[in-house]
């Protein structure tokens, strides 16, 4: 099933402080879209609006043309999975218990064969089948993130939202998680929308990038179109040097704030 997500003139205020203003974009099925922007630009809020954690005006978020307000409490989790920025459990649940929570929209009381099957499948897909019975709170950050992604995947979503999925991970886990996202998008045609801080990871793994500035869409398009010197300067207020990486994607090298372009070149002759 291919779903198209449309964001249509989405505005959101927290207690009369505007956070998002007239955000518009579309995500096709199987597409990876990264949301970039400095702290406070509304990345997390946008994800939470798409997920109906925050209520928006009518017809601001549409799935295949249908307003998300018209989906029932049990329907929406079967379409959209959500991976929050940080996850802790108040109680000591096992990995299996935590992943199983993703089956909440499907389960009434006891578990079906399908529940066991999909949990087992997903744990294997993420390479964490070994610690199903270990305790969630005793895992490392990278392992916890995979468990939380597994929880979102057993919802069998067609759209996956991730709020800075790599921000607390080491470089190996960052790559692993993003490669998993690419597999998901390619093999299962799941749309992936993630808020990211790392411009180069976004450049490398996204089909398209949405750049937010103060709650408004500043730029949207392919990494080549969006990650320009001018955009980075305007949105993040830093000077940057854009080159092509060995993978053929734009590579952003930020320059220290006090240096102008010439100073940078003098200090690092190799970039010339």
């Amino acid at each position, binding site marked *: 099933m291919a779903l198209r997500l449309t964001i249509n003139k989405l505005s959101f205020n927290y207690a009369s402080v505007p956070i998002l203003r007239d955000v518009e974009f579309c995500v096709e099925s199987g597409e990876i879209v990264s949301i970039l922007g400095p702290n406070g630009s509304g990345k997390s809020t946008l994800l939470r609006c798409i997920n109906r954690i925050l209520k928006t005006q009518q017809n601001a978020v549409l799935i295949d043309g249908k307003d998300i307000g018209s989906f029932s409490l049990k329907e929406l989790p079967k379409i959209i999975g959500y991976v*929050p920025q940080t996850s*802790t*459990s108040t*109680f000591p649940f096992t990995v299996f218990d935590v992943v199983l929570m993703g089956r909440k929209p499907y389960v009434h009381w006891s578990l079906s064969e399908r529940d*066991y099957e999909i949990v087992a499948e997903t744990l294997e897909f993420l390479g964490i089948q070994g610690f199903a*019975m270990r305790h969630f709170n005793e895992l490392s950050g990278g392992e916890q993130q995979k468990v939380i992604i597994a929880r979102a995947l057993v919802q069998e979503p067609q759209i996956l939202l991730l709020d800075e999925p790599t921000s607390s991970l080491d470089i190996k886990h960052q790559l692993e998680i993003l490669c998993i996202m690419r597999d998901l998008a390619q093999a299962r045609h799941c749309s992936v929308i993630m808020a990211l801080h790392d411009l180069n990871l976004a450049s490398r793994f996204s089909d398209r990038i949405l750049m937010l500035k103060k709650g408004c869409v500043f730029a949207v398009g392919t990494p080549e179109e969006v990650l320009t010197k001018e955009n980075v300067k305007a949105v993040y207020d830093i000077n940057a040097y854009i080159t092509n990486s060995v993978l053929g994607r734009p590579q952003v090298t930020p320059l220290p704030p006090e240096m102008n372009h010439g100073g940078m070149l003098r200090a690092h002759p190799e970039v010339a």
Partner: protein
Amino acid sequence: MSKAVELKRLYGKGKKRKVLALFLLVISIFSAMVVSVSLGAGSPRFGDAVKVIASKLFPFLGIEVGTITQTIIWNLRLPRAIMAIIAGAGLAASGATMQGVLRNPLVSSYILGISAAAGFGAALAIVFGAGVIGGYGHYLVIANAFLFSVLAMVMVYCIARIRAMTIETVILAGVAVGYLFSAMLSLIQYLAPQSEAVRAVVFWLMGGLDSATWQSVQVVSPIVLVTVALMVFQSWNINVLSMGEDVAASLGVNSKRVLAITMVLETLATATIIAFTGVIGFVCLISPHITRMIIGSDHRFLIPCSALVGACLLLCSDTVARLVLQPAELPVGIVTSMLGVPFFLYILVSRRRQSWR
């Protein structure tokens, strides 16, 4: 799918242990009940207790028992033991539910100010109502305690509604309302004309099961059974809530609605129980912790298992309270703490794993 089978086996192993724990608890409560009713002043012994219960349950067996023995066991001790079981179960299940929903280890079933409100209601009836416990006054105390508990919950609910029903507001509003009622309770005690009435209030506040009759068991047990069953039905929601409200929302759980439902259930159960028994503390706080350390945090098992642990704890405590100072009785709250705390500390120190983040 052999992977799924393997996973099911692993998970089934843990589940079997939990079911076994539930089963063992039911057995021990039942045996504790039979032992409890055979202990105490007067002639009845263990064999008599079994005989009386058997003769009442299976009248066709034609078992002969003396009328005095029968009166002591069937009319005095058995309703009291059953009341201990039901009260302990209801309070502990409420405590487990509220700790889970509010995600706070210090929460008990009195978090919404219920104990102080019930105390105030009871004191109002004892001091200014009929003036004495017994007859019309007795029912007035029960009704007052119940109504003021519900009033406290409604106050907390309304205050929390203004501030969007966050768990912090519920806890703080509960504490504030509790302080308000305990101040008014102190005021009544201070202004009370007769010292006898003040003594009666203090006695009520300590709580006890000595006034239990079949009649009160008949009123309390259906309410407790139904509310606890409905709490267990919220288990999945409570489990999901432990990962935070955002995650719960993304999984289709309306956390505010779950909070409102559990608040009402918890108040009904707790208010009904303490209207008949007075304030019995500690069971509702400690039983969920003991249970969590033994069988883990899945509320589908935690709530019923907590109820059984609470029942066991209160029944044993009440039996000890009846026996140690014969023919006088200790208030059961003193015994609950003295028995429960060492047991709790033992598990706390010896357990392998953190049971709370």
